[in-house]
């Protein structure tokens, strides 16, 4: 491997796809070779199991309400509704996506990590020395974050896929509920949510750079988004007495995610699921684009 032999090769344009493929592999390796791997994947698997457990317990309580409730009639009606095919399908869908509203937070933080860790550890210098075409580096990071979103979704789906049939059998619900279109839809929309939140986190991390600031901002946007969106939408509704204004809450990314995932309407006046998907895609694209623009121009020192 003499430099003499290598120099001409270095001037030959490597195909974009080939370069991108090896950059993605390098990005995956970056995550695999630090503690982040175990924190994210192990932590996620543990959280998924806990969420399934919690889902099991809460649905069990719903199916077999205790007898000392003040609204006993309502509780019994709910339990009866759960026994209908539609009710069982809804339960199955809920079990197959146990804790998803919390779990997508992990992919959000993973997206943040993929880019901010390089600034915190000062490895961005060597990353850009190897690949001065920064848009390729960011592209690889986007693909990696999305791939990890898919991976975490797969872990959740496998865990829930094992737990849910057992749950249905244990609660004497028809196993056929698992095959309903509602379950399918919930799982597929979940995949979209995992991927989009990972991209959202990456864009946010690229813009903010500091891992702590970006992580706090990510959580604030995720959790606080609900509150602010509901507040503003309700105020507008009170002011103008138009219930469609309530639907504007979908503009908050967390609400958009909610609208996208929910079977039926997520809240009063909520737009259809695809509106939520569009809003979330728009956020992902805008933030990622902003991140690319910032990283491409910024000095690395």
């Amino acid at each position: 491997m003499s430099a003499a032999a290598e120099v001409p090769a270095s001037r030959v344009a490597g195909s974009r796809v080939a370069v991108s493929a090896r950059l993605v592999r390098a990005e995956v390796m970056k995550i695999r070779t630090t503690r982040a791997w175990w924190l994210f994947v192990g932590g996620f698997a543990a959280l998924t199991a806990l969420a399934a457990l919690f889902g099991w317990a809460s649905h069990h309580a719903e199916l077999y309400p205790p007898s000392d409730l003040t609204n006993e009639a309502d509780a019994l009606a709910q339990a009866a509704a759960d026994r209908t095919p539609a009710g069982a399908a809804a339960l199955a869908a809920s079990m197959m996506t146990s804790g998803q509203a919390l779990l997508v937070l992990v992919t959000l933080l993973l997206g943040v990590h993929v880019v901010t860790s390089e600034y915190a550890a000062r490895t961005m210098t060597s990353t850009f020395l190897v690949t001065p075409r920064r848009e390729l580096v960011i592209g690889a990071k986007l693909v990696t974050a999305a791939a990890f979103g898919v991976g975490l979704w797969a872990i959740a789906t496998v865990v829930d896929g094992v737990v849910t049939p057992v749950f249905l059998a244990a609660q004497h619900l028809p196993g056929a509920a698992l095959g309903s279109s509602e379950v399918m839809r919930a799982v597929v929309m979940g995949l979209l949510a995992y991927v989009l939140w990972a991209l959202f986190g990456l864009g946010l991390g690229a813009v903010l750079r500091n891992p702590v600031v970006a992580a706090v901002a990510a959580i604030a946007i995720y959790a606080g988004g609900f509150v602010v969106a509901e507040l503003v939408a309700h105020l507008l509704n009170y002011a103008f007495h138009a219930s469609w204004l309530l639907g504007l809450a979908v503009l908050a990314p967390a609400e958009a995610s909610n609208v996208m995932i929910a079977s039926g309407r997520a809240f009063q006046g909520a737009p259809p699921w695809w509106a939520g998907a569009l809003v979330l895609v728009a956020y992902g694209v805008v933030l990622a684009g902003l991140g690319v623009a910032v990283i491409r121009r910024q000095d690395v020192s």
Partner: protein
Amino acid sequence: MIIVLAVLIVGGIVWLLRNRARPGSAERRRAAPPGAEPQVPAELSVGAPIPEELWPLGRVEVSGLTKEYGGVTVVDDVSFTAEPGRVTGLLGPNGAGKTTTLRMLLGLVAPSGGVARIGRSRYGEIERPVLTVGALLEASGAHEGRTGRDHLRVLCRAAGLPLARADEVLGAVGLARVGGRLVRGYSLGMRQRLGVAAALVGDPQVLILDEPGNGLDPAGIRWTRDLLRALAASGRTVLVSSHQLAEVEQLADDLVVIAAGRVVASGTLESVIGAHAGLEEAFLELTAGRGEIR
């Protein structure tokens, strides 16, 4: 409960297998004990000599580089060349703009004006720059929580080099025994060596090093000097920044002296020293009133 247990058990098994699969992983989390400073390898591995017809590809040419940060000019119209087959020392007091100049040369910092080329291209235009240019900026530049070997493997993977190259360069800089340890446990000298290993990973024709002697013990300084001299002797271009005059005097063929962002002298070592008693006298007079101490 069963599910949580299952996850913990499966996780534990995977963890154990992973640790088993990696030799040296048991000692990874331990900090380097005193006296564990790696042995300097007796032989220098610098790669095959560069045929003379390819030397022009390794010429570094900086012309009119300028960098302003918020109205303050930290690098002001800097021009110089670094020639193949020679060691060029970039000399200047702290804060003179050496690092910024090198970062502009390497495409990490966008110049406010001027251009820097390696061969005929700017750094950002070279397709696989690791194969042409090796750079050492801050010590190691590696993630604290990653092993030295993994740091180099990530570079290999991104550059499209075989992963085995990581072990080759680890051996070349005398870090073979500690490659499996986390960088967190490395001494400053070991970090510098890891940085040199990273610079050598693509067997480049041009080496650009920012203060490579920092934190090295006398044996390490000697080794670095011998390595850089051998690299230059093989037809490679070596550009080294430093403010350690004695070290530069023994190492460099050519000098570029910058102070307060401007080139105040350049040429061969002898021509820069000129009529002065030595490099120290020449340097102090050239940079008088322009360093940190005024």
